[in-house]
Each structure stands twice: as C-alpha cells, then as structure tokens.
C-alpha cells in the first residue's frame, strides 16, 4: 500500500467527485427551493446516461459534447414532471410527496429497462483511454475533463443564482415562498424552472458519468441513495455543502475501495449515512433554511 497508490485513489476520487457534486447540487437545489425530496433523481440521471449513450452510438457524439443536449433533454423531463405531478403535491404532507416521487422513480427506472434492456452500458468516448502522467501518478484525461466540465457547470449555476434576476427570484422563493408570492413573483414558474435546472444538472452528470462508469437501469437507485448521502452529509439545502460533499464522498469511496474490500465500500456508505442521520442530520454545512 504505497503512498502513490493512495494518492492515486484520492486523485481519481476527487476528479470523479465533480460529477457527484453536480448531481448533488441538482438535488439540493430542488429541495432548497421547493422542499421536495426527489427520489427519482438517480433514475433521471440514468436517462441522461442512456441519452448520451444513444447519441454516441447513433450520431457519434462524444459525451463531453453531447452532455449539453442531455442536460436540455432532462431539463424538459424535469419540467414535465414538475408541472404535471409535483406541482399538485407541494402542500401535501411530506410522506405523500415521497411516495409520489417513488412512483416516478419506479416508472422511469422500468421504462428504461423496457426500452434499453437490463444490460450495463458504457458510453464510448474519444478520450476514454487517454492518460497523462504526473510523476508516479497518472491522470485519467476523461476524469480530468469531466471534473473541469462539472466545475464549470457548477460555477455557471452559481453565477446564475447569484447574479441573474431569475436566479435571485429563485433564491427568494426558496427563502420564503409566501413572500415571493406577495411581491408578485410567478412562484409556479420559478418552481418549474428550479426543478428543471436541478434535473438538467443531473442529466449532465449522467451524460458525463456514462463515459466513466458502467450503468444500467438498476444503478439509478444506487445513485439516488448516493446523492442523498452527499446532500445530507453536506447539509440539505446548502449548495456549497452539496458541492463539497460530492468531492468528499467520492474521495472516501475511492479510498475505501482501495483500503477495504471493494464490495464493502457500499456498506461504509450506509453506515456513514446512519451515523450522520443520528448525530448530525443537518450535515456539515448545516443550517436548514426556514
């Protein structure tokens, strides 16, 4: 167990973490704005992955290019889900929302199963096997690009939320939905946009991840759980927490796979989740916005 190996694992994890962060930020945005717990998050992501896969297969589009299209497509999916379903249960007890999203998750996952079949896939990318050597450590070019893109997208989202008018409205609605109504904001539209953006994030993450990690309809649920793990560790409703949490969890998973039996790394994740739920449910960057 050399230092180089550990360093390698950490770096790999860190770079991969960009996608985790993107995924978690999307979830956190949806929760932060609407207090909706999107259990279908991972399954939306899988659809993003499949879209990237199909685009690569049929049109030869590299996922590092097509992710924009995937993001847009999943944005639309998010808008449809929000308008048709989520909107109606905004004021329902939480359990009802959870069950609704569970239903959506079931439908999305099994629709993917029916359409694409159960086999695991992986998107072809021109950069798939390229590596760059940094001394004793090698950097996976695909991961590097993924990290860069994920970072860029997160920054873009940050700028949007904090500099643009619509973004400020979204943050206002997140802070105080009633107040936003009072000042005449079209809260319904804001919610739709926010949900759509959250979905777009996860769609992009799915597209980017599809080149790095094999996926199948069944991986959707695992990704949902991972997203929630990250968001809870980072703090529900905190975008920064989600971003940093993604990096943290990815590094932890990567190190865990190297230091422990690989198949037990999932176990570590769940034990960590239980501990956080019990002792620090508000996450590391805590503060639930009221």
């Amino acid at each position, binding site marked *: 167990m050399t230092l180089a190996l550990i360093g390698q694992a950490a770096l790999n994890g860190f770079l991969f973490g960009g996608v985790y962060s993107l995924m978690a930020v999307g979830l956190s945005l949806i*929760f932060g704005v*609407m*207090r909706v*717990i999107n259990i279908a998050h991972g399954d939306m992501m899988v659809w993003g992955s499949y879209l990237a896969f199909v685009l690569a297969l049929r049109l030869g589009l590299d996922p590092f290019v097509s992710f924009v299209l995937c993001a847009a497509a999943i944005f639309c999916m998010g808008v449809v889900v929000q308008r048709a*379903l989520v*909107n*109606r*249960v*905004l*004021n*329902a*007890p*939480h*359990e*009802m929302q*959870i*069950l*609704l999203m*569970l*239903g*959506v*998750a*079931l*439908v*999305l*996952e*099994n*629709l993917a*199963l*029916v359409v694409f*079949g*159960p086999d695991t896939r992986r998107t072809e990318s021109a950069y798939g096997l390229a590596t760059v050597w940094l001394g004793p450590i090698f950097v996976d070019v695909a991961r590097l690009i993924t990290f860069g893109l994920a970072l860029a997208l997160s920054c873009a989202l940050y700028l949007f939320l904090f500099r643009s008018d619509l973004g400020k409205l979204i943050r206002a*609605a997140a802070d105080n*939905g*009633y107040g*936003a*109504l009072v000042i005449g904001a079209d*809260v*319904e539209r804001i*919610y739709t946009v926010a949900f759509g953006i959250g979905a777009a994030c996860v769609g992009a993450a799915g597209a980017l991840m599809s080149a790095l990690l094999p996926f199948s*309809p069944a991986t959707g*649920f695992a990704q949902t*759980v991972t997203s*929630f793990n990250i968001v*809870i560790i980072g703090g*529900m409703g905190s975008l920064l927490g989600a971003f940093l949490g993604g990096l943290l969890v990815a590094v932890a998973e990567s190190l865990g796979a190297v230091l422990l039996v690989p*198949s*037990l790394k*999932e*176990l570590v994740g*769940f*034990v960590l*989740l*239980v501990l956080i*739920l*019990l*002792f620090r*449910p*508000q996450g590391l960057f805590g503060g*639930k916005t009221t």
Partner: protein
Amino acid sequence: MLLALLVLLALPQFLGSYLLTVFIFIFFYAYLGQAWNLLGGYGGQISLGHAAFVGIGAYTSTYLAMTYQLSPWIGMLIGGAAAACLGAVIGYLGFRFGLRGFYFILLTVAFGEICRLVVSHVDALGGALGLFITFSGDPWQFQFSDNRYYYYVALGLMLISMGIAALIERSRMGAYLAAIREDEDASEALGVNAFGTKLAAIVLSAFLTGVGGTFYANYLFSLQPNTAFGIPLSVEIILRPIVGGSGTLMGPVLGSFILSPLAEVSRTYFARGGLSGVHLIVYGSLLIAVVLFFPRGAYPYLRGVFRRLPRRGAPPPFRHLPPGVARAKPAPERPRDP
C-alpha cells in the same frame, strides 16, 4: 364479511394450481402489508426497509432448520423475535434521535441495505448466492406437497394479521398511535408515551413481518440476500397498504387484491423478452395515481362513496394553499431537553 370468508375457504376446491398461487401471493402480501400497516399506516412512520425483517426471519428459521433440524414452525417464532430485535434497534435509534418523515425512511433504507450487504458476505449464510432449501414435502418442515395447504396457511396468516390490526385499532394503543400521528406533542401532554408506543408498534410490526419471512423461505425454496432484503421487496410490501388505504383494516387486503392480479397479468402478457419491468411501471403509475387522486387509498375512497361518513385514517388530505405556503418542517425534530 363472513360470506367472503366462506368463499375464500371453499375456493381451493374449484381452482387450479396456477390460480391458487395467485391467491397465495394475494394473501401473503396482504399479511406483510398489514404488518407494515401497524407501523406505517396506523403509526404514520413510513418504513422502506421492511424487507430486512422478512430476510431476517427467513434466514433465521432456514438456518436453524438446516443446521439444527429445528422445525420452521418454531423457527418462525425465533425468526420473528430476531426481526423484532432489529426493529427495536431501528425504532430506538430513530425515535430516540427524533427522526421523522424522510429521515426515518432513510434510516430504514440504510438498515435494510446494511443487512443485505452483511448477509451477502457471510459464508455461513450462503453469501451472495444465498441458501437453497431442499424440498421434502414434510409438513413439520413447513413444506407441503399440495399447494392447497400453502393456500390455507397464507389465508390463516392474513386473517391473523387482520385480527391483530383490528384489536389494536380498538385498543388504547390504536388510539394512542392515531393521536401521535395527528400531533405527537399534544398527545404527550395527554399522557401518551409517544416513544414507547411507537417502539411497540415497530417491534410488533417487525415480529409479524419476520414470521412471514419463514413462509417466504419455505414457499420459494430459495433465499438470496438481494431479493430477501432488497428495496424491491420493501416497495412491494408498502404498495398494498398505500394503494388500498394505509391506516385502515381492509386497506392492505384490498390493495393486495388489486395489485397482485395486476402484477400477474402484466407479467404474463409482457413476460416475453426483456419486458419484465412492466408490472413495476404499473406499480409506479398506480402509486402516482393514488397520491394524486386517492391519497387515502382505495378503501376509504370507496367507503366514502358508498356511505358519507367522516373519513378517518392516515394520511390526511392535501391542504389547498397557494404553492410554497405553509410547509411542514423537513428537518428532524429533536426531542425536547428532558
């Protein structure tokens, strides 16, 4: 009611083996659903990890039968007790730390997955491949050569669970669970030991589910950690009471009579090739439909249609407010200082 019971008792005389199997699944999932209902419906604490109790019950009785030749009829109770212990742990941790709603659901999911992963790695329990039970047809080993016996056992289980639920509904525990569901703090002020009552609910629910695990093992003759402990089984369990009406006596039963045949039909008609997920799409759509249009479930809706009585049982209807107004707190509420 009595008429329905007589019909059900007489049915095996007239039905072929395939249809008997359908009914067995209806009764069995109604039983599991009713056990879940005690905690999730009457108690209002939704759990997505109940498969863990099935798995523990199943593995316990099977292991004891395989290693010590202990009759599963006894192993069933031990399995139930083991599941009850896990239930007590989850309940203690969850309720003591004030986890509610989504956070409690996550806790149950986490424990379910932890059980699944741990069992997958224990070779004595067959590891990831699971355990295979040899068929002997010996009634003492909870195996019957004739499907009809399974039918009656399953029916019996369902009736027992309904009896227990009915008893609880009418008892102090039932009244306390309803009060806790409505307003936990206000109920505490009236002498309700919320923590103790919820703990009792989860322990009982876990015990009954664990007992069901033995039936599961001895009807399917194989146990794999991924199916016995997995989320899909947990989803199957909660669907019946939710579609049929959580918090009501007939809910899980009605839900099972709706869902199991539906699943069978979609499986039969779409089973060719890789379309095995269609029944789950149906499940998902039903879940969505129920949440949007029949939030209390089919049974209360039908009862309301036929007699205009004040409707009771969880969950409460949507409050019609403009979007974004008046939300319930999503963060867990910590217990007060004492």
